């Protein structure tokens, strides 16, 4: 049988023990009581027989005393010696009788008091005998009268004494016997009551235990029935389940198997009985979880490969329950399942995964799969560490790690992509992460969804690539594109403007030539035309020079040398002041250059020339004291150039536009419109700044800051 039910403390057993205890208690008490009662009864008999014998003896004694009395009296009255002798014989016979009676009575004396009374009787008898002897002597002496008188005087008296003593003894015997019998009767009665009480108690107990035993028995019967039902049920389950269940004895032999076990292994019950379980296990190099020959008490996991009757190999997995019998191992109950299909699928998956793994390991990209339902990673390829900076294991153990290393502002992208994946579509996101070694990186992830039959997203596989470098070049491309666009539009404007600015002087020349040709002109007129032509040509040349300057700033790299700024300013002033009509403009130059000032000579010089030239150009003719003030102050960090004039000034609305290409903020402007634009471009290139303060009609002040490129500040 597969199961054994053992009950150490059943109700029935308890009741039985209780009953035995009651019996012992009752028995222990009743036997001494009964014994005592028997004793009392025999004592009763003893008292009665002794007392009867005593009273018989006393009665005999009294009768004899009467005989002696009458004999004595006859002796006194007898007239013949023979008669006297006859009476004397009677007397001595009675006395002898009395001796026997008293000696027997003496043996029966029980109390001191009785002994005292007997002694009294013996004493009066002695006195009585003495008087009687005297009487006999007197009677024999024939003095009859004297004998008679003595008799009357003495004998009667002693006789009464004697009879009284006997009476007293008899009275005592009677009263004493009565008392004794009474006491015995009382004792016996008391004991009987006790016995009755005990007996009734025992009866009650017996009834009680009997009832309990009965009810316990009933219960036991019911339990037994239930157990039987359960066992039946258990058997049904055991026999119908696909779980293989079997028992192995401590010696390793199979004791019992269920249907599933036999079917899975192809053995019949008879084949397996006495078979050692060990023999079914296919020896495998891998160590067993549980060596079957050394079971340890408790529940343990087992995973084995077993061989069937037909030699097929099956994988089983499950639990073994090993019971313990004292210190020795008991029967092992195995509950195992056939997992061959699962195992084979696993092996196939394993080998496929290994192949895939080998392929995936080649890439620096991260490949991963995640279980959406359980929010768990299924696999993460080694490339992950390169991409994210954390080993695969970290991602396997912590499914939230992705989010924690991702840039906060990119987190919404994840939920957006999940929405797309839930629709069964591919999703792709680009987000930033905080790489533990490389800092911020751009990651692109492409994801493939897997939906179940209910169209629920269950799994997502993906690939992540570090696209930081690509992104960088993309950003650079965007930046370059913007720059190109700017350059292109500048080029457009440049072409447009140059077409105008270069054509304008040419058209003027054409006009002047027309004028010269179509009319006969005076020499003065011709000279006027020629002067204008010269001015036009020179203006055109300036424009072309400016264009070259602009191009040079845009294309050449920065140079750095120790500059004598004062010299550069004076040279610019000299150049500009030589023009016609500028001699009355007063120019002051102040330079404070305590430390060497390093910068790009050609560029700084272009800025100075442009600003100084503008200051001269835009002086007012109606200003009586036209003046220009130029200062330059530098320290180790930067140099500040300031060019101030009291000329036309710049109207508020044009102040922003003056630094744009081809802007001429004055009707007087004859230049290319490139001067201030070039200044701004150069200053930007030098990482400096340029600003203007101006009041129309009062003058302008241009202020330029240029960083000092001391040796250590220099660009590499």
């Amino acid at each position, binding site marked *: 049988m597969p199961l054994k039910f053992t009950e150490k403390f059943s109700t029935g057993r308890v009741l039985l023990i209780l009953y035995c205890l009651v019996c012992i208690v009752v028995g222990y008490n009743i036997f001494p009581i009964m014994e005592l009662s028997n004793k009392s009864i025999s004592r009763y008999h003893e008292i009665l027989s002794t007392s009867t014998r005593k009273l018989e003896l006393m009665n005999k004694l009294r009768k004899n005393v009467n005989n002696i009395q009458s004999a004595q009296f006859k002796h006194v009255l007898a007239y013949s010696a023979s008669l006297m002798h006859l009476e004397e014989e009677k007397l001595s016979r009675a006395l002898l009788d009395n001796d026997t009676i008293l000696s027997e009575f003496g043996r029966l004396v029980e109390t001191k008091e009785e002994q005292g009374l007997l002694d009294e009787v013996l004493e009066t008898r002695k006195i009585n005998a003495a008087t009687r002897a005297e009487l006999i002597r007197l009677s024999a002496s024939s003095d009859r009268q004297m004998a008679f008188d003595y008799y009357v005087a003495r004998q009667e008296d002693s006789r009464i004494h004697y009879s009284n003593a006997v009476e007293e003894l008899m009275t005592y015997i009677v009263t004493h016997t009565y008392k004794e019998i009474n006491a015995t009767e009382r004792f016996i009665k008391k004991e009987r009551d006790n016995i009755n009480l005990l007996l009734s108690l025992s009866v009650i107990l017996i009834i009680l235990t009997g009832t309990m035993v009965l009810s316990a028995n009933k219960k036991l019967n019911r339990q037994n029935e239930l157990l039987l039902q359960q066992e039946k049920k258990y058997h049904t389950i055991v026999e119908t389940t696909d779980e293989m269940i079997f028992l192995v004895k401590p010696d390793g032999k199979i004791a019992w198997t269920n249907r599933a076990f036999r079917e899975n292994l192809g053995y019949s019950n008879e084949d397996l009985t006495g078979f050692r379980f060990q023999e079914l296990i296919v020896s495998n190099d891998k160590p067993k979880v549980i060596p079957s020959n050394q079971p340890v008490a408790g529940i343990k996991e087992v995973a084995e490969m077993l061989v069937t009757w037909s030699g097929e190999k099956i994988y089983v997995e499950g639990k073994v329950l090993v019971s313990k019998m004292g210190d020795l191992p008991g029967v092992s109950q195995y509950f195992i399942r056939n997992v061959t299909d699962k195992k084979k699928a696993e092996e196939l998956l394993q080998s496929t995964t290994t192949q895939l793994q080998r392929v995936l390991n080649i890439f620096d990209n991260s490949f991963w799969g995640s279980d959406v339902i359980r929010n768990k990673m299924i696999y993460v390829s080694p490339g992950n560490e390169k991409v994210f900076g954390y080993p695969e294991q970290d991602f396997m153990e912590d499914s939230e790690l992705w989010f924690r290393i991702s840039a906060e502002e990119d987190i919404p992208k994840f939920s957006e992509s999940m929405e797309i994946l839930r629709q069964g579509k591919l999703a792709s996101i680009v987000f930033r992460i905080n790489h533990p070694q490389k800092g911020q990186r751009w990651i692109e992830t492409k994801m493939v969804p897997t939906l179940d039959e209910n169209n629920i997203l269950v799994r997502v596989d993906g690939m992540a690539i570090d696209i930081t470098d690509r992104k960088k070049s993309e950003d650079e491309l965007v930046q370059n594109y913007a720059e190109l666009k700017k350059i292109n539009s500048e080029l457009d404007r440049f072409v447009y403007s140059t077409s*105008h600015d270069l*054509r*304008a002087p040419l058209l003027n020349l054409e006009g*002047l030539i027309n004028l010269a040709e179509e009319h006969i002109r005076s020499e003065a007129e011709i000279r006027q035309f020629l002067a204008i032509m010269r001015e036009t040509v020179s203006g055109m040349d300036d424009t072309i020079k400016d264009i070259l300057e602009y191009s040079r700033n845009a294309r050449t790299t920065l140079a750095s040398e120790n500059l004598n700024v004062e010299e550069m300013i004076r040279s610019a002033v000299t150049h500009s002041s030589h023009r016609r009509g500028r001699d009355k403009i007063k120019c002051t130059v102040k330079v404070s250059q305590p430390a060497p000032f390093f910068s790009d000579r050609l560029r700084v010089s272009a800025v100075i020339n442009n600003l100084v030239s503008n200051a001269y150009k835009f002086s007012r003719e109606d200003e009586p004291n036209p003046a220009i003030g130029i200062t330059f102050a530098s320290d180790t960090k930067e140099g500040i150039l300031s060019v101030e004039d009291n000329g036309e000034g710049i*109207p508020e609305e044009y102040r922003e536009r003056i630094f744009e290409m081809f802007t*001429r903020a*004055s*009707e007087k402007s004859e230049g290319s419109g490139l001067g201030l634009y070039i200044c701004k471009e150069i200053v930007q290139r030098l990482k400096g700044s340029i600003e203007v303060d101006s009041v129309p009609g009062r003058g302008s002040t241009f202020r330029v800051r240029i960083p000092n490129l001391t040796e250590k500040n220099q660009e590499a």
Partner: protein
Amino acid sequence: MKPNVLLVDDNNIVNFISRKTMEDCDFAGHIAEYTSGQRALKYLERLAKNQEQIPDLIFLDIKMQLMDGFEFLDQFKKLPASVKEKSKIVMLTSSLLDNDRRRAFEHPQVIEFLNKPVTKSKLIALVEKLAGSREQEAGSRE
């Protein structure tokens, strides 16, 4: 009757050439010249009540500093009716762009679009055009 002329170009060499050419062929009556559109507008404003002196023709450059030709045309609309009705505008520019030409003719006062420099033949053609347009005023309005 020779027209009064106003020359507006920020380059005074252009104005010089235009004036000389007009003088050579006795094209205009009174010739005024300005290198700034703003000052030219102020001049026109001043003449508004003086019907006689309001120029018949304004030669206007497009690419000028501070206020270009188109800005001048926008401001011109705000001038008193006397000026707007009398003065016709001739664009005189180095621009070869169709866009500039189209923009200019959007303004009803603009009657001609000439390329620099001004020449005798261009002025003669202009005179003929002016005469023709006066004859079919109603038609040209359409």
